[in-house]
């Protein structure tokens, strides 16, 4: 007989005791398991080209141009339609990627190792705001920036990390940034500054040319999302530590590809349970409305899965305004998530809740029983490729994915 409670405790204990350390930066093909020349990784559950949304298509095209496999949009599309390119979820390769999450073999990626359990997770580098590949932009300037990131920024970060004493402790960084007003998903201002500060001296040692050094520090320091990508890799490393526990109903992955949202459950192996992704409810940048919004996209919901992001909303009341809320709503958001989680995080704490740990370990049973869905803080992508971010807000996964997962669980364990 299975013991679901015990299995869930085990799963969440592994998730929270995981200690993700940023060990380095390296080209994807050298480190990501199963990476190959004709493979592109993407955010969310598996998707075929003809189902992909605008930003996802744009990012795929951009990645092929970046790789030099295609010279332009048309040739890129032709290659894909000819079946020359494989598309697989980041999650199936120990990776995560924000928004479209497209990761190609040459791209530099963060390497985060969970030193408690030994598993490793990967995530590409953050491009900043504006026209960026992750929102499906692939103009020349986008590609040029990616090249600079790959040729200058990535190697500098790799060397800086190599000079550091064993890498950068992402869990400690996250704990600190939660106390500084971040929730680790939509708001990463404090974390990005901490990240930049901690690497600055080693970047200075690693880079000979002071102009390049200044450029790198400027790029990292200006971008309030710099830390998001290593945070996502850290969260992936933590969530994966809790995956594969027999009999556990804890959700270990939640991700969107711009068309569908998918989840995975610890005790249900590598199956995806999917349903249509929702258009987020939020605030829009000048000139944009919900008409422009793409359905929810990205692997960044790994943060919620690991017990931060919307789950730590109480730590970052400033961003609750994305959904026209009050600071009380921020508290309520976190309090609500305690109802569907198995534990409180021993390392991620929230000052305003008297340093109570963040809710962690989403139990799909609780979701079904109470009808409370996990909250997602998210950026909003324009539905057309290349326009970029048009807002930010709150999204909810479709209830059907949890129902499917529960039914599958019953079939696996209770029949």
């Amino acid at each position: 007989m299975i013991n679901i409670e015990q299995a869930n405790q085990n799963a969440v204990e592994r998730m929270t005791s995981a200690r993700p350390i940023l060990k380095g930066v390296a080209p994807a093909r050298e480190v990501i398991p199963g990476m190959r020349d004709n493979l592109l990784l993407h955010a969310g559950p598996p998707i075929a080209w003809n189902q992909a949304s605008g930003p996802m298509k744009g990012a795929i095209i951009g990645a092929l141009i970046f790789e030099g496999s295609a010279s332009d949009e048309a040739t890129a599309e032709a290659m894909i339609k000819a079946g020359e390119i494989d598309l697989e979820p980041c999650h199936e390769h120990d990776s995560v990627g924000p928004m479209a999450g497209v990761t190609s073999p040459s791209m530099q990626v963060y390497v985060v190792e969970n030193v408690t359990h030994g598993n490793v997770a990967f995530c590409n580098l953050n491009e900043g705001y504006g026209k960026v590949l992750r929102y499906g932009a692939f103009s020349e300037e986008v590609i040029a920036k990616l090249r600079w990131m790959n040729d200058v920024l990535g190697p500098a970060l790799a060397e800086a990390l190599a000079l550091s004493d064993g890498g950068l402790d992402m869990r400690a960084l996250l704990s600190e940034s939660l106390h500084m007003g971040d929730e680790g998903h939509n708001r990463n201002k404090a974390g990005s500054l901490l990240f930049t500060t901690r690497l600055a001296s080693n970047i200075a040692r690693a880079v000979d040319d002071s102009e390049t050094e200044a450029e790198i520090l400027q790029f990292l320091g200006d971008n309030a999302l710099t830390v998001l990508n290593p945070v996502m890799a850290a969260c992936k490393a933590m969530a994966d530590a809790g995956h594969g526990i027999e009999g556990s109903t804890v959700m270990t992955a939640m991700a969107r590809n711009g068309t569908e949202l998918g989840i995975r459950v610890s005790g249900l192996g590598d199956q995806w349970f999917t349903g249509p992704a929702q258009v987020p409810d939020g605030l829009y940048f000048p000139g944009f409305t919900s008409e422009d919004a793409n359905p929810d996209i990205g692997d960044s919901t790994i943060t919620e899965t690991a017990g931060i992001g919307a789950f730590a909303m109480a730590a970052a009341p400033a961003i609750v305004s994305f959904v026209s809320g009050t600071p009380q709503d921020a508290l309520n958001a976190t309090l609500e998530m305690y109802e569907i989680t198995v534990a409180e995080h021993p390392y991620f704490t929230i000052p305003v809740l008297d340093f109570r740990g963040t809710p962690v370990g989403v139990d799909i049973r609780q979701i079904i029983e109470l009808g409370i869905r996990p909250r997602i803080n998210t950026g909003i992508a324009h539905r057309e490729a290349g326009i970029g971010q048009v807002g930010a807000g709150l999204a909810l996964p479709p209830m059907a994915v949890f129902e499917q997962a529960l039914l599958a669980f019953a079939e696996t364990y209770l029949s």
Partner: protein
Amino acid sequence: MVSQHELRRGVYYDSVVLMQLQRSLASLPEVIDAAVVMATPANLEILDATGFSVPALDAKPEDLLIVVKAESEQAASAALSQVDNLLTQRRSTIAQEYQPRSLRAAAAALPGAGWVLISVPGRYAADVARQALDLGKNVFLYSDNVDLADEMELKQSARDQGLLVMGPDCGTANINGVGLGFANHVRQGEIGIVAASGTGLQAVSSAIHNLGEGVSQAFGTGGRDLKGEVGGITALQALDLLGRDPATNTVVLISKPPAASVATELLAAAQSIDKPVVVNFIGYPSPARHLGNLHFAAGLDEAAQLAVDLTDVPFAARSSEQPAAGYLRGLFSGGTLAVEALLGLQTTLAPLYSNVPLNPEQRLPNSWQSQAHTILDLGEDEFTQGRLHPMMDNELRLRRLRQESADPEVGLILMDVVLGEGSHPDLASELAPAIAEARDQRADLEVVAIVVGTDEDPQDVDAQIAQLNEAGATLFRSTGEAVAYVSQRLRQPYRYAYPPIPLDQFGASLSVINVGLESFYESLKAQDVDTIHVDWRPPAGGDEKLMSILAKMRKES
């Protein structure tokens, strides 16, 4: 359409505040659209691309740029003039506290809560109650339509943990001076109440208040508690608790007619308490006006009055005399006396059988063979065929007396001795030797006789009494007195054998989690109770299939 802008130098706002301001501006009358950004090069570029072009500006990233597109210049400047207002505007909505959706979350939010008040629809109520017990909480279960099997399981599980489940279908209670469910405002005092009748509890507690006394604790048990299946679990727990409660001087026990076996056990429990207990089993005959510490009331008003009276006088602790062991066998020559004894004793003795039963369960299968407690009318046809009535001929009674006294399970023999014209001329001369013989053989056997007659009867009542006394019988001159005596002597030994409900949650302030009707939450709030309301909804939205899977998963775990 016109466009106006304003540049504010050296101000910083969080991007979220800016987006909110932008939305507020855009919703002003005659405003077509608005943009509010920090004037970074990237943002200026976006503005350009999205049709908010402004003339070349000497702007720095730390400057705030506000652009308004409107129907008229007037509307645009009006909008811009609103900016400061909008930036300082605070929502006037009252901060809404978090309303948890699950009992678990409510318990985490109000860890001191010792009680859960449940009023969700019956089919879900048992599950919620189970969760409450798992969290170590006492339960006030207002919901009705709960399965009897669930009720039994809940109450047994609560009893084994030293927790209380009042209900299901418990309408009222008063704990620590706080009314739960339907309840009257009554002053706190020294009278504790246990009631399997909701309105009965309300009537008695109100009457006590109106008589100038007050209530220590009042427990509703739910209407089915005193049924045979449930066995009065809650009532017995409450009695035990009130027996130990130093704030309670007198106890009132109210119920609609309980099952006989349950009534017997309850009275035994009540007799084991060192406090006066007023009993009113509505419509149920009482064995006497009072038995030791038990006082039987004929109605709710009288119960309240008795309780108030008893609270005002010091209570003499009950005698330490141990009850007699063994069964009662009643050997009556008078039919009405037999029935009267049966009526009185059925409250305190169970199981009780007779050849003249008051209800079908009491029917003795074989009149020639007694079982458990038995009361026989030996004047019934079955016994008198072919022989004289036992008032004239003692032969049958003597034979039966020997038969009963030879049974080691028998502890007390009750008989009537009816004198007068037509009766045997010297009953005692035949009965007394048989009694003496039985008592010689069984020193532990008690014989009680009811002597009916006057000093003018031909048998010489004094001489009859003297002979019976000599033989060792205990004598009474009326059935009522005899019944009271026998009830006392044969009361069931009782010891509460389950974990006691801790007293420390009584007398202090009350902390309650409310699940279900919001009006109960409001009522608790109004009574200054520390309380939290669970925003309860049917599990899995009421989806049967998902609910059954969840239930199965709970069982597996």
